[in-house]
């Protein structure tokens, strides 16, 4: 299976379309960074709203950590679209090219094909996130410098010391990787049933859009299904930036307010990944290859 995994990875990185996602992320992050570099102060005033009249804020609010947080908030919704470009093509693309029949007539089991391909698509997803992390965090720190991060939540504000942030980003990116792997698994699963990649790409994007709407709208009917939607749990990376406070309302360094939420959401996402990959294996094993 290792041979198959290596071959799949080789194929992914030999295709020009693979680099579309990397170019898109670079362009988007570059634009956000340029915008914040030029008009960062106005953006901070907008984010703070009335708070800027009641709080006296010293230091560099528009620092690299804050910029990275803004980028993650904006991009983690859109990265799934870029992931679907590759993951949804893994099986259906082979069917469309006519190579699936040649591949499956080789001495490899269909389970190995699914696992090898899924692992290769996962490596692509992780590479994409590493690239995103490099641009959003490292490059932003380089451009905007570092300071404490100040975040406005629903009905409160959080301040985290600069020396207490990096490990939170490490956790957030690891969690984001899990969330994006769920998208990879979904696109991959849909690709098993199609003969070309357009259908699974559109289906993946549609599912994410629908589920995100259900997850974010506070309507009683939707509230009942929210806990079961992976999109609800994909945003739990933000929990790394919610801290416990002491009796003086000062952030406790190294703390997370609701670590149980992160663990629960991670478990839900892992269950989604395992289930989707297992069904993909079952479906491909049962499938007659007519392409």
């Amino acid at each position: 299976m290792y041979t198959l995994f290596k071959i799949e990875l080789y194929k992914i990185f030999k295709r020009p379309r693979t680099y579309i996602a990397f170019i898109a992320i670079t362009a988007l992050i570059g634009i956000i960074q340029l915008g914040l570099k030029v008009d960062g102060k106005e953006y901070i005033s907008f984010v703070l709203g009335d708070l800027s009249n009641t709080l006296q804020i010293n230091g560099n609010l528009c620092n690299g950590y804050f910029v990275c947080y803004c980028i993650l908030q904006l991009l983690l919704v859109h990265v799934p679209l870029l992931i679907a470009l590759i993951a949804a093509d893994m099986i259906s693309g082979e069917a469309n090219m006519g190579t699936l029949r040649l591949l499956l007539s080789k001495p490899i089991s269909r389970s190995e094909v699914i696992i090898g391909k899924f692992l290769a698509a996962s490596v692509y997803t992780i590479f994409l996130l590493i690239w995103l992390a490099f641009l959003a965090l490292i490059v932003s720190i380089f451009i905007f410098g570092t300071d404490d991060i100040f975040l406005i939540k629903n009905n409160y504000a959080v301040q985290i010391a600069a020396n207490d942030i990096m490990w939170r980003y490490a956790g957030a990116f690891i969690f984001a990787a899990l969330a994006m792997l769920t998208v990879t698994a979904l696109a991959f699963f849909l690709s098993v049933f199609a003969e070309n990649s357009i259908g699974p790409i559109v289906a993946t994007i549609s599912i994410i859009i629908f589920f995100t709407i259900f997850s974010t709208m506070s309507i009683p009917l939707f509230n009942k299904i929210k806990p079961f939607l992976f999109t609800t749990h994909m945003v739990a990376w933000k929990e790394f930036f919610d801290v416990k406070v002491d009796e003086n309302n000062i952030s406790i360094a190294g703390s997370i307010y609701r670590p149980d939420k992160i663990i629960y959401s991670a478990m839900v996402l892992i269950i989604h990944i395992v289930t989707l990959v297992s069904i993909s294996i079952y479906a491909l094993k049962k499938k007659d290859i007519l392409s």
Partner: protein
Amino acid sequence: MQNTDIIQVKNLSKQFSKIHAVNDISFTVQQGDIYGFLGQNGAGKSTTIRMLLTLIKPTSGSIKIFGKDLQDNKKEILKNIGAIIEKPDVYKFLTAYQNLKIFAQLSGCKVSKEMLMNQLEMVGLASRAYDVVKTFSQGMKQRLGIAIALIHNPDVIILDEPTNGLDPQGIADIRNLIKRLSKEFNKTVLISSHLLNEIEQVATKILIIDKGKKIIEGTKQELLDPEQTIVEFETIEAEKAREKLIFSKWNTDTIFQNYNNISLSLPYEQIPSFHKFLAENNIPVFSFHQRNSLEDYFIKVTKENDVHAI
């Protein structure tokens, strides 16, 4: 090793909803055979071949290859099979060399640059080894497909319509390659085609299927009706020749004249004495063709099947 049963198919059927694509087919391919799988488009050839390659699951029946059940020993058996299934589709964004390397690795063989280049040389693609496949013609893709099918030196080679898209020289090359693989290397070849001429020129055994059903199986000699070899000759004295034929033992209702060409049906073993007859009667013969009657036979048996179906 001769006469060892390599492929044993018993009562194989495949049903897609209400359509019987393959209906209770049985056949045996022995080592060193070039087994021709003949049938019109949609007869069930590709479905059968896909079942032999585990791409399609049979509805019923069994397949044994190398004496082992295909479903239970899939990996072991497929290691020893090379195949082209309909179009030779490969990764268009990779070069011929990269494609060959990938499929060689997937076939479980150790690859070296020399080995891969030799294989590309064999199919006449060495000079295009590092070109991406999307720049290849259909014939070049077909030749790359053959290189992929043979790279791991399999004992069984399954070729589904292998000459599709090839020019006459390419077709002749493939034909010679198939004959060489069988004669020199004792490889077992199963070749399917809807082109009678194609099968006829290479196959040692032929199976004809129609509408998913086996019509007949046998060697070419067994299948050809020895009473119906059609001969055709060209003479400037066609009228005289026709008259002589009518008043001779060769007179049958198969005599047909078309300008200077005369054709008739006669038993295969009587062809030499027919030559003698023409010479004794001073009929000048400019050309003489012995037309193969497999085509007539094929049309006859498939038509009979149509009638039975009605």
